[in-house]
């Protein structure tokens, strides 16, 4: 008996493993003939985010009522670069999936997404998206593979309470890097571990901020030459200025704190705990500071990026999995334009405001023309955050040119991260040598851009 049971157990294990290996189940992407078209989408907020999850689920119900031929199968989760390829390989990627703008061009180049351009004419609202954002989801022939959802541009976040304590005017954020440096000295002089200015230098985020900062002083990371080939452009006066001012603040002024190699949450946490005076950041960072680390909007202000000659813009959107049927693409477009639509902003903001949620930040705003005006009106009408704290940033939105990321952005950021690390962790770092070395490496990366 015991022997038989052991044998049965072993065989069961073998059978289970064999089934697991086969990865059973029906083939992906097939629909029962004649039934409604079902699409899988991600972006469903987690159960802990009760309000947004409820809104999402209500949207799904309303959508399915309006489009009886379409069904939405919503899944939690956003873009996770570490599991993305595994999801594709295992056939688990959602039909319509969330991406950061940074990833869109890579996915298009790797042919992992579907062309949705033939169906856009049926969804006229897609013409109201900012053209710069649509370019991120398009290839060089103008074919479109996704739609924007959120956007940001980088400005200067600062702690108004610390500004007041340091005798600085919280309604007048610094407009130049020299002013940032002076303010950082006054903020650091408050003591009690307060850091005057903070910046990133880990996990590619340092390279991302270097890019924003070189844009802010009129420089560039990569430009096309006369032949149309991409070349590095940061080994320039502007590149030197960015690294030197950071090095000076870190070592000469000692206003950036001893702790470096900081990544995303480090600065956001410092900001929330009133230990950081100023950082380059977006409205999204501000929201993270408030919602995740229990700070209040009243304590913060936001101005345009110092220098003001340009800033880095980014955001997120949704793309369509490769190999989708036209019906699924149409269903996906219907879903995206249903849930993100200028005609709904007023009602959405009213509901969020009634719940006491933050309304009134100058970004995201993915629209242009009439749609943008609707967005602005709805934002002002239902504002729950102190909009005047962010007025300097909002006022500069049209004035400071928003530039997108360079091609192969993550690879370039990884190289530029190193330059940021060196100036922030080595008092003897050689700015010229760092830029020359990075230029050589980025040159190799850009040579692979087709």
């Amino acid at each position, binding site marked *: 008996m015991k022997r038989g049971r052991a044998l049965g157990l*072993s065989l069961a294990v073998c059978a289970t493993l064999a089934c697991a290996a086969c990865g059973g189940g029906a083939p992906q992407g097939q629909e029962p003939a004649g039934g409604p078209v079902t699409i899988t989408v991600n972006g469903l907020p987690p159960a802990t985010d009760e309000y947004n999850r409820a809104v999402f689920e209500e949207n799904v119900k309303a959508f399915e009522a309006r489009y009886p031929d379409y069904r939405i199968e919503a899944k939690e989760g956003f873009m996770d670069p570490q599991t993305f390829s595994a999801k594709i390989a295992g056939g688990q990627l959602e039909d319509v999936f969330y991406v950061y703008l940074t990833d869109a061009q890579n996915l298009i180049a790797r*042919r992992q997404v579907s062309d949705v351009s033939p169906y856009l004419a049926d969804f006229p609202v897609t013409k109201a998206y900012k053209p710069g954002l649509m370019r991120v989801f398009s290839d060089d022939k103008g074919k479109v593979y996704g739609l924007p959802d959120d956007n940001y541009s980088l400005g200067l976040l600062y702690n108004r309470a610390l500004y007041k304590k340091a005798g600085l005017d919280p309604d007048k954020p610094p407009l130049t890097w020299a002013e940032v440096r002076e303010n950082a000295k006054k903020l650091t002089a408050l003591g009690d571990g307060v850091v005057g200015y903070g910046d990133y230098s*880990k996990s590619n985020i340092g390279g991302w901020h270097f890019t924003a900062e070189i844009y802010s002083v009129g420089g560039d990371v990569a430009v096309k030459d006369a032949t149309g080939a991409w070349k590095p452009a940061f080994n320039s006066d502007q590149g030197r200025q960015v690294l030197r001012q950071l090095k000076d603040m870190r070592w000469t002024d000692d206003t950036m704190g*001893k702790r470096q*190699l900081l990544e995303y949450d480090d600065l956001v946490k410092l900001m929330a705990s009133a230990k950081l005076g100023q950082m380059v950041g977006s409205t999204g960072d501000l929201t993270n500071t408030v919602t995740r680390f229990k700070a209040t909007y009243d304590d913060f202000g936001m101005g345009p990026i110092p220098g003001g000659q340009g800033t880095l813009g980014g955001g997120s959107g949704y793309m369509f999995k490769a190999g989708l049927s036209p019906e699924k693409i149409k269903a996906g477009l219907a879903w995206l334009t249903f849930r993100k639509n200028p005609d709904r902003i007023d009602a959405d903001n009213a509901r969020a405001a009634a719940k006491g949620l933050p309304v009134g930040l100058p970004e995201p705003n993915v629209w242009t023309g009439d749609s943008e005006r609707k967005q602005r009106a709805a934002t002002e009408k239902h504002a729950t955050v102190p909009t005047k704290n962010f007025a300097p940033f909002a006022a500069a939105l049209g004035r400071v040119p928003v530039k997108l990321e360079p091609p192969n952005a*993550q690879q370039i950021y990884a190289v530029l991260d190193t330059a940021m690390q060196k100036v922030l*962790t080595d008092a003897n770092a050689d700015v010229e040598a760092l830029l020359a070395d990075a230029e050589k490496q980025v040159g190799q990366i850009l040579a692979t851009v087709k």
Partner: protein
Amino acid sequence: MTAVPAHRGRRRGAWLRRNLHAWAFLAAGVACFALFSWYPLVRGIVLSFQQVNFVTDAVWVGWDNFRALFDDPLFFTAWANTLEFTGLALLFGYAVPFVVAVVINEFRHLKGFFRIAVYTPVMLPPIVSVLLWQYFYDPGNGLFNSILTGLGLPASDWTQSPKMAMISLVLVSTWANMGGATIMYLAGLATIPSELYEAAELDGASVRQRVRHVVLPQMRFILLVLLLLQIVATMQVFIEPYQLTGTTNPDTITVLVLVYRYAFTVNNDFGLAAAMSVLLFVVLGAFSAAYLRLTRDKD
């Protein structure tokens, strides 16, 4: 074709029946290995010669991925860093557990307590150990700098200093992993016949002499095996540089950190990552074979 005599066939049938459940157990084990070890290994080797996007068919690219590796300036940096880490890890991680084991073995009381104390870090999830040390190393209010400044010594930038970064990683790794090696050494020490110690003690041998003339010769085999295991393990260091110094710090980029960058954070190129992994596999395989051959020949 030769006919099998009937009695031999019957014997074989009986033997098979007798061992049927053993075969079934073996099959489960083999299936596990095949699925989770051998298949990924073979798949990795295949992948290293391909360019994949997991949507369309993979493209065979021959040796292109390997050529691209050699064109990457970080390739040599990563190998140099990995060898430096391995060298330092051997210096600390190989010698320290041995000394600790010998010392614990010399205790007459509280042996069990010290065994548990030494082994406890191994039971912590690696990321917890590393995060703990991240606080110790903090150049602002970290534990180590508080101790140093308390003693009137200059503070260090630890993981943030190009000179100290690698040593800082090795210290974490040694602390987190020495428990396993220490326990194995202690087990080895326990197998040494007590008569040998007693004879040495009667001859007036000091602790150092006992270690040299009794412990080392008796533990030669376990020392050699642990040396091999440790080199293979430390060459695959990942979590310490990943968490403490980041994946973009050229002072501490190791082979596996580069593999991670290729696959996930920078290049999104699984072929390139697989090629680097295959190279590490070949290097470690060749080293292990040569090591076993050399040490066997001496026996």
